[in-house]
């Protein structure tokens, strides 16, 4: 029984010492983000975000990503709209249509020569 008590005492001391060590090397900011020192590299620290930080940052990043996707879609739509305007202009102007037909004919001739 006595040996068992000593063993328990030693285990408690060990756990307390480790707990103190861990606490003394970590700090928590107002947002709940925890910064801890690497036990093997004293000049290296890591910051682990709190759940609220993680959620809010992911939300902001999600909005930014959506914005990028929308901007890219807008650019594609602008290109398509511009192409449509040009096509309509050519179709409505007989002079341009004739020129386009001549250019297409010349291009086809050049392509057949290169073959």
């Amino acid at each position, binding site marked *: 029984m006595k040996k068992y008590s000593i063993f328990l005492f030693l285990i408690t001391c060990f756990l307390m010492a480790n707990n103190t060590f861990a606490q003394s090397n970590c700090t928590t900011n107002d947002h709940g983000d925890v910064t801890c020192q690497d036990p093997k590299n004293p*000049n*290296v620290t890591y910051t*682990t975000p709190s759940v609220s930080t993680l959620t809010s940052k992911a939300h*902001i*990043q999600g909005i930014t990503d959506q914005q*990028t*996707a*929308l901007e890219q879609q807008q650019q594609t739509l602008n290109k398509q709209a511009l192409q449509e305007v040009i096509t309509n202009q050519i179709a409505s102007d007989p002079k341009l249509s004739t020129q386009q037909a001549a250019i297409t004919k010349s291009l086809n001739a050049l392509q057949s020569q290169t073959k």
Partner: protein
Amino acid sequence: MKLTFTKNFQCCIIGFILFLCSPPLLNAQTITYSGTNVGIGSTSPGQVLDVQGTVRALGYENSLSLVATASPSAVSSITISSLSPGTRYALFYNLIQNTSNGYYALNFNGDTPSTGGTNYEWSDGAFLISTYASTYLNSTSYINLAPSTGHSVTTGSPIKGVIYFETWPGNNDNIIVNFSEGYYDYNGGNNTYAANVGSGQYTGSASLSSVTLTTSAGTMTGTAKLYILN
């Protein structure tokens, strides 16, 4: 009173004294001299120093010296401190972006967006599949390692690169940065591979002391190693 010792005991005493006085013995099989070459673990050294094994040293001249190794696991930032001005550093990183998309930001001396600093200026450009993106910004609170705030590393994908930085000649407070990296850019949902290069500078008001690598959202896991370029 007269002390008498047996011969065996005398031999034993002499042997013990010889053992204490003798220099440490070198294993002739592990160190070999061949002309002007020396081999350690090599019986026929082919160079001035031929080591057949791992060499451990605190540093080497005219080469890389490891300063710190970080092994982040699901963290949002890594900070390496105890840096010195006038030293040329190289930070190699190989990370996986977790939880959500995020872009990577670089900060010095704890001067981060939370402190409201505007001491950073940077420019970079990325080649993505069939497109190109670039950004220039000044008076910002970090150096962005993606072409713009609209580009980020896709969740679950790697980012690998190197950042070179050192203080300006004769100015311990200002830091010049060059970087190159490869990563999967979310790119509006297209998830395209990006090769990004850039440069930036930090014009602070204190000597270089630390560097911080942060992901804007989610967490990072992997390794980052800081070297001194001697």
